[in-house]
């Protein structure tokens, strides 16, 4: 059976309403309430009766499940199909599909320092033959054909420093950040240039490519601020400017995952804010990053996306989610360039639906425009 035959049609009245809601948060204008984006990936396939593995192994199915479940919970008007470790197979990493997690790398490709120089960055033509481009375009071509109103091409590079580290193995990379920073930076730059080739190829195919990037490994629990400044902040500026130069953008989604208590300030003046930029910050210490502080730091430059703690989504306590969401909304909803309610990271695949509905309920109760 063709994938599209598994699903009833999307409710276009819903989609249009959701589209206006999202546009209002990013571009200004009128809408009913703030939008909610729990960064859903494989929860969508699980919620449709499939598996986590299916999301990654079957891009068309994953993309259609995303669209369908966005509608169920009244979330985003677009599919946001992407996956972890993009562009790493193009540099020699083998990804293994797993039953209960995203695909995981099986090998490293940099063992000795000299191996960094041997890595060959593919250009935008060469990268079209690789794992990442073929899987992303399988999903995006499908969405463009079957669900055109929900189509948005994404060029993922979620953690340039973490993916660079993955080429050599985490321990070795972290050691290099102490003993040979230039080598660590060269490795990250090789990965980043590969991701830029990918962004260029996607932009050429679709006319644009939303950049999703940020910093995950480089966080306050793992690295000192001076290291994060070099391996993450400086490199993000390079990534986005290079990708724009080669046709990607104009949308940028910055996902700063993990604890950024001691380093978030490094990014404020270094990252590039396009007119369509969303900044998301996970934690400050062990707590969610406060919406009020996110607004103060980034609110005059970009749409902010404060969060509810992802850990709460596996606990059968939707009230706790509702209460935390309400606090975050109240503290950040008047951010001058818009507010989206999020979660600190990808919503867990086996989250009870009641927990996701609590997010949306809080957005309705505390995020309705004109009531504050």
């Amino acid at each position, binding site marked *: 059976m063709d994938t599209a035959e598994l699903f009833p049609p999307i409710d276009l009245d819903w989609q249009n309403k959701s*589209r206006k809601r999202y*546009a209002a948060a990013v*571009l*200004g*204008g009128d809408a009913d309430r703030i939008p909610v984006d729990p960064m859903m990936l494989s929860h969508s396939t699980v919620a449709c009766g499939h598996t986590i593995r299916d999301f990654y192994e079957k891009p068309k199915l994953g993309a259609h499940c995303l669209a369908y479940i966005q509608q169920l919970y009244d979330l985003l008007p677009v599919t946001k199909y992407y996956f972890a470790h993009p562009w790493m197979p193009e540099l020699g990493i083998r990804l293994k599909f797993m039953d209960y997690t995203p695909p995981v790398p099986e090998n490293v490709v940099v063992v000795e320092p000299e191996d960094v120089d041997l890595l060959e960055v593919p250009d935008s033509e060469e990268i079209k033959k690789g794992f990442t481009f073929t899987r992303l375009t399988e999903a995006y071509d499908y969405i463009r054909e079957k669900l055109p109103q929900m189509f948005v091409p994404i060029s993922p590079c979620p953690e340039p420093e973490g993916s660079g580290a993955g080429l050599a193995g985490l321990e070795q990379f972290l050691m290099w950040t102490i003993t040979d920073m230039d080598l660590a930076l060269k490795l990250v730059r090789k990965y980043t240039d590969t991701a830029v080739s990918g962004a260029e190829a996607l*932009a050429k195919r679709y*006319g*644009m490519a939303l950049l999703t990037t940020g910093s995950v490994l480089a966080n306050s629990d793992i690295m000192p601020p001076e290291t994060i400044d070099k391996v993450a902040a400086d490199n993000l500026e390079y990534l986005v*400017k290079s990708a*724009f*130069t080669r*046709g*990607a*953008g*104009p*949308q940028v989604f910055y996902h700063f995952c993990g604890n950024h208590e001691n380093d978030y300030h490094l990014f*404020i*003046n*270094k990252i*590039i*804010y*396009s*007119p*369509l*930029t969303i900044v998301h910050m996970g934690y400050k210490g062990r707590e969610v990053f406060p919406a009020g502080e996110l607004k103060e730091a980034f609110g*005059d*430059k*970009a749409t902010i996306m404060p969060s509810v703690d992802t850990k709460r989504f596996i606990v059968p306590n939707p009230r706790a989610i509702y209460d935390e969401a309400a606090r975050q909304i109240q503290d950040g909803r008047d951010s001058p*360039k818009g507010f989206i309610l999020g979660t600190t990271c990808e919503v867990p695949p086996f989250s009870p639906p009641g927990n996701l509905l609590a997010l949306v309920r809080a957005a309705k109760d505390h995020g309705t425009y004109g009531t504050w």
Partner: protein
Amino acid sequence: MEYVFSDAVKEVLGKRGLKEDDIKAVIDYAEGSNDKITDGAKNIAKKEIGDLTVYAVYAVDGGNAVVESGYAHKMKVLDIVLDSSDAEGWTYAKNGAQVRKGHANLTYMGATRSGPALVEPTSGEAWFEEYLAASALAAAEGLFEAKRA
């Protein structure tokens, strides 16, 4: 002043819907007013022409203005929202001040958003570079138009 447009530059201008006369007008204005930024060899100047802000990238060689590129955006440049201490090697010819990397607000179809720019805080002036204006800003303008439709 004589204007030199290579065939490659003419092709780029044509693809962007710009006329050679637009670029000449920008250069005429910049050379007459000193309202341009320069790195000593290359100049970037801008001028509002109709609904567009048109930019010329050019060098002055004797009596010739050698045009390297031209581009434009529909978004109106507003105030500077962020400036870094990083110098980019550019100087604002009008006041001699160093130009910095930064961000400026842009407004279009009732919405105000930021974009990366070269900025000079004393004068409040900002210039958007070709890498941004030619693709990302143009695409953003299209999305603004579509989402507000």
